[in-house]
């Protein structure tokens, strides 16, 4: 006799069997034909589960009957670990921004809602002092779960208006985190590369934005220290020494740097130019 085995996707296969055999024999045939282990199979016919040890005749299974086969692929003890090793670093990074619950309840005791506290802690990257500052000043930077800046509201923009402005990077200038990064970079310009590399991993969109507006980004980096349009020039310790010597000859720092740079950092030429063209500072050595 031929019976049909239909799986849950509606696909049918035919099996030729002896009507007298037990259900378990049918499952064995299915295991051979389709590879599903016997233990994972359940067979249904007319609303009933077919028990392994009963013969098919007990269920009035006849020629061309359609048995529904359900295969349970989820054996709890055999389930693979949901996350594999390569994802571990990423998880650690995220864990870093998971807020500490004890800290949350401590800050909530100060009278803030859980939502505010969590937002503040995230924005402060779990620095509770900073989070308190955000809460007290009720200026919590809006962040996503990783603590990346998302957007700022207009009031904050106006506050910052007197300092550095940049249409493209307004949102960065609002970020206390960015201000800190900027301080670091200003002190040690090599940090900029480190920062950009980190950005590649954590916020590629921002990196792309920076790359396409590099000039503006450099400007806001130097921003608060320098008026618009100035260029920042780095001097080696020897060059700084030269500049200092020239200033000691009685010229203003501004003049000295200007001349020194214009004659290609040649101390002698700069000195003679200065003597020829610039007034020595009447107050003398400074």
């Amino acid at each position, binding site marked *: 006799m031929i019976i*049909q085995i*239909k799986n849950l*996707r509606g696909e049918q296969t035919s099996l030729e069997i002896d009507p007298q055999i037990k259900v378990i024999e049918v499952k064995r045939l299915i295991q051979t034909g389709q590879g599903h282990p016997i233990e994972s199979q359940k067979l249904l016919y*007319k*609303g*009933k*589960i077919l028990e392994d040890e009963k013969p098919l005749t007990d269920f009035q299974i006849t020629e061309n009957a359609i048995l529904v086969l*359900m295969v349970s692929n*989820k054996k709890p003890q055999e389930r693979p670990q949901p996350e594999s090793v390569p994802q571990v670093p990423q998880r650690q990074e995220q864990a870093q921004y998971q807020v500490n619950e004890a800290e949350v309840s401590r800050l909530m005791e100060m009278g803030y809602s859980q939502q505010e506290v969590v937002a503040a802690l995230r924005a402060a990257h779990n620095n509770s002092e900073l989070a308190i500052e955000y809460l007290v000043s009720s200026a919590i930077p809006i962040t996503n779960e990783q603590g990346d800046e998302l957007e700022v509201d207009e009031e904050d923009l106006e506050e910052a208006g007197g300092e550095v402005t940049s249409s493209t990077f307004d949102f960065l200038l609002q970020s206390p985190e960015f201000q800190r990064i900027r301080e670091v970079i200003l002190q040690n310009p090599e940090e900029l590369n480190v920062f950009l590399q980190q950005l590649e991993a954590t916020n590629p969109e921002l990196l792309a934005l920076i790359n396409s507006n590099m000039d503006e980004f450099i400007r806001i980096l130097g921003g608060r220290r320098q008026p618009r349009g100035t260029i920042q020039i780095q001097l080696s310790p020897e060059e700084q020494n030269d500049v200092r010597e020239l200033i000691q000859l009685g010229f203003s720092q501004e003049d000295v740097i200007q001349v020194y740079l214009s004659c290609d950092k040649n101390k002698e030429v700069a000195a003679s130019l200065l003597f020829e063209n610039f007034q020595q500072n009447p107050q003398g050595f400074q």
Partner: protein
Amino acid sequence: MQSAVPRNFRLLDELEKGEHGLGDPNVSYGLDRGDDITLSSWTGMIIGPPGGVHENRMYQVRFHCGPNYPQEAPQVQFITKINMSSVNPHNGIVDPSNFRILGNWTSQYTMETILVELRKDMNSGANKRLAQPNEGETY
């Protein structure tokens, strides 16, 4: 038996459909006892929908089709224990006032409709995460 939809014609139709598994492959149904000439007592089986607590479980359901079926809805009762908003937790009976298909029954519906709808309801927001009795326990 009313002329609108003769009960036995209709039930024999459903019987044939159930035997040949023509409908939704996730539900199965048939007469409880093959020799029941009144076509009253039926058994259905629902394969738990994936993505929730019912995944890989099977639920047996009993239907009782009264003399006015399909003008009147059958009585539906879970045999396998289940924790679900529309099911009485003490006896497994599906409460028509909590289950749209039974509450607003029309003669177009079949037992398969009921099984399919019960299966959908298992994965509804209200039921998807409910803690369930041990697998295979019965009322």
